[in-house]
């Protein structure tokens, strides 16, 4: 018995270990590696570019997506504040309510909304918004302008057109507004409109333009980089390659063929090529853009006796789809060649310019199209509507798509300049955006159809130059 009591201290130690403190406690959270600027300086960040930089999504520019543009996400990663009213330390020309977009006729409409599954997209339930940060006393940090060309960076030719008044407010060229802020870090995302603008219009530039456009683009890029560096020798600049037309769902969602209702075999759709002549398309080479849905809905493009997959109740009328909604193989190749020339020049500029980094947007979107992006157990893809990475217009990335672009930007900047900018966490940006309630009654649905928008309603909401 005595030995038993002598052993009690040992038992007590054992019991203490059993009711442990330190080892039993929950693990501490792990913080992201601290932001360090390395060779870059993130004090003042200004973004210039197209609708992608602006955060244009689902056919409109609206504040609730402008705050999730990749420059805005990147700004948060480098410690800036981005507010819905556009008045954070990374300021933006925000537009309220359901934003401002344009329909095919150029009328202003709000953002597209997905109304009823499986595929009813309309702007009929959107409330047109207005810029609500026009009185901001400085140039905006985000100078992305939907529809901008590289030549619009320094030029004033389009100062009164489209979204320029909302962003530049007549105060000068985008370049001068950028320089006025003396930024230490700049992103220049241009080139998409030079190439993809033709894709969305379904047209092909002339032979001369196919050489001239890339040359003008490269010239404008070099001039911009030179001017910026001369005035701001310590500023770092990031350029972006131009995505391939086949990596966006706009060009790859609708098939170029359907099935025959009699034989069950595949039959190609009928379309008008770049030369003006019509005939069957070549599936696998010719592409049909989302804008074709408007015409398919009425039976155009579907051979007689073919299955109308957009609107099965309407039989195919055998008439061709207009050239504007067909991206023929020759048109596609011409645009791909132009983009390749432009991208090669961007790579060359970056290689010889130590203060320039390059984000390979072209490679990124091609990889995403092929493999998607896994986040935990969820697979995000470039699929239209259901993929999660592209918005309802099939061209512009969704908020989540912007996270993917931002993280590519983060990686490029960290690799080039030795900084440690933390990547954005997709979980912070995966949310519901474009849903709205079902139409309230049959009258509204009839009005929707009457407007000629059909079930997809896309043609009505997609502008020529975004």
């Amino acid at each position, binding site marked *: 018995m005595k030995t038993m009591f002598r052993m009690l201290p040992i038992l007590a130690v054992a019991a203490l*270990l*059993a009711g442990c403190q330190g080892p039993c406690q929950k693990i501490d959270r*792990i913080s992201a590696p601290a932001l360090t600027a390395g060779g870059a300086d993130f004090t003042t960040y200004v973004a210039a570019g197209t609708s992608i930089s602006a955060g244009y999504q689902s056919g409109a520019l609206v504040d609730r997506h402008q705050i999730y543009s990749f420059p805005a996400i990147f700004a948060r990663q480098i410690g800036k504040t981005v507010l819905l009213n556009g008045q954070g330390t990374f300021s933006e020309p925000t537009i309220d309510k359901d934003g401002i977009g344009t329909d095919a006729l150029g009328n202003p409409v709000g953002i597209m909304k*997905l109304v009823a599954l499986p595929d009813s*997209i309309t702007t009929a339930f959107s409330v047109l918004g207005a810029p609500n940060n026009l009185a901001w006393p400085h140039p905006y940090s985000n100078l992305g302008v939907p529809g901008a060309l590289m030549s619009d960076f320094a030029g004033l030719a389009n100062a009164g057109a489209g979204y320029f008044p909302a962003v530049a407010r007549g105060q000068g060229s985008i370049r001068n507004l950028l320089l006025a802020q003396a930024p230490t870090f700049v992103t220049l995302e241009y080139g998409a409109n030079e190439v993809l603008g033709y894709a969305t219009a379904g047209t092909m530039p002339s032979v001369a333009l196919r050489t001239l456009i890339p040359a003008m683009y490269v010239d404008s890029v070099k001039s911009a980089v030179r001017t910026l560096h001369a005035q701001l020798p310590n500023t770092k600049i990031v350029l972006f390659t131009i995505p391939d037309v086949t990596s966006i769902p706009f060009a790859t969602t609708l098939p170029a063929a359907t099935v025959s209702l009699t034989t069950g075999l595949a039959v190609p759709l009928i379309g008008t090529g770049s030369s003006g002549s019509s005939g069957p398309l070549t599936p696998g080479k010719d592409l049909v853009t989302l804008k074709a849905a408007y015409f398919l809905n009425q039976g155009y493009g579907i051979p007689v006796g073919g299955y109308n997959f957009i609107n099965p109740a309407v039989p195919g009328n055998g008439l061709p789809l207009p050239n504007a909604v067909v991206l023929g193989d020759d048109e596609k190749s011409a645009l791909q060649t132009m983009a390749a020339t432009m991208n090669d020049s961007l790579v060359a500029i970056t290689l010889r310019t130590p203060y320039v980094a390059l984000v390979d947007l072209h490679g990124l979107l091609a990889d995403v199209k092929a493999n998607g992006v896994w986040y935990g*157990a*969820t697979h995000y893809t470039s699929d239209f509507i259901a993929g999660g990475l592209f918005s309802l217009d099939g061209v512009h990335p969704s908020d989540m798509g912007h996270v993917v672009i931002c993280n590519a930007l983060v990686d490029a900047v960290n690799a080039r300049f030795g900084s440690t900018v933390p990547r954005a966490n*997709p979980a912070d940006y995966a949310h519901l955006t474009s*849903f709205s309630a079902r139409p309230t009654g049959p009258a509204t649905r009839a009005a929707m159809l009457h407007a000629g928008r059909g079930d997809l309603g896309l043609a009505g909401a997609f502008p020529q130059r975004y």
Partner: protein
Amino acid sequence: MRLHRTVLAAAVAVATLAPAAALAAGYGIYEQGAAVLGMAGAGTASVHDASAEFYNPAVLTRLEGRNFQLGGTWLSTHVSFAGTEPYPGYGVTESMKTGNFFPPTVYWTNHFAKKWAYGLGVNAPFGLGVDWENPDTFTGRTHVTKGLLRTINGNFSMAYAVRPNLSLGLGVDALFAGVELNQVMISPPLPGSSGATVNVARAHLEGGYASNYGWNAGALWMPKPDWKFGLAYRAPIDVDINDGTAKFTQIRTGNTALDSIVALSLPHDQGVATTLNFPSVLSLGAAWDPLPGWTWALDVTRTKWSAFKSLDFRFQKTPAADTSYVEDYEDSWRISVGAEHRLANSTYRFGYYYDGAAAPTQSVSPLLPDANRHGVTLGLGWKLGAKKAWNLDVYNLALFVENRSTDGKVQRSLNGIYKSYVNATGASLAYHW
């Protein structure tokens, strides 16, 4: 719209759960005798009670008379997780509910004929329990929210004293195993959304007890009175669970269109089959009595976890949903050192063991957060009763598990650092006559 996942199941025990002597990584439990555990499980040569039935059947010839032993352990497990990139991201922390498990042991040993002995034993050589808090928001919920692996092993062994200082043993095992796995299924990105997903169903898989046979063997050699060397081997066993059930329960989201699509595409309740791989274990032990009343022991154990290559689920009605988790476990090593000091009426014991992880980095998961372990044990024993026929042994094992990082290598599941701690307190009560 198709759902990503169709349920999977099958248990694989959590490495952290196995306290006791020769706890290998993975899902081994070598909590099989309080006296041996007091010495950090270095029992292959040193064991001298009825738990030899498990640790080294050859030792049965050295036990006097009849022995009956009942034992149990209270295992309590604490596991938590901190996230890094890419998923679930920095700043996320998760915890498992504190687990409490009670693997039992029962042993009976006796002699027959001049040099023969035999033993019967029932114990739980493998096991796992995983139960994450807040299952509906747990970031690893598509992998597992709650999982269980239970085993019961029945063993019959015989031993023969070839010479007074050399014994051999051989036994047969009947291993019964049962599993349960629970998961939450999430939708793909909701159409028109920017990546939002919602919980749409719960999956519950259950199977067992199924069984299979195995064998074990041992040898004990005493070249000198104060030196013993032991060898013990346990053969691998694969248990096929063919009649498991998979149940899917929809979680209504309130979005009627989504709910109807989920209702259409959710797999029906159906049968599911899987195979559980239980690895072979080879132990070499040495025991030395340097001073009167003292024994020092050393054991080296290799567990052939490379037998665990993947975790497969085969569905009866929807074979398209069949899933295979690649695990590619690696053989692991454990080394234990322990000491025992026998006094007049009591004994005290202490020991340390190191047990290497079996899971490669990319297989570390919320179901199997395997890691290297360091065990520290303390034990006490008393002879009780008028004739000292009763033996009571108690021990405590503090199992310090190294933090295990996924190093960003895990695909499609949690990346971050797992922290675990296990404590085991146990006792054995034996009667010999």
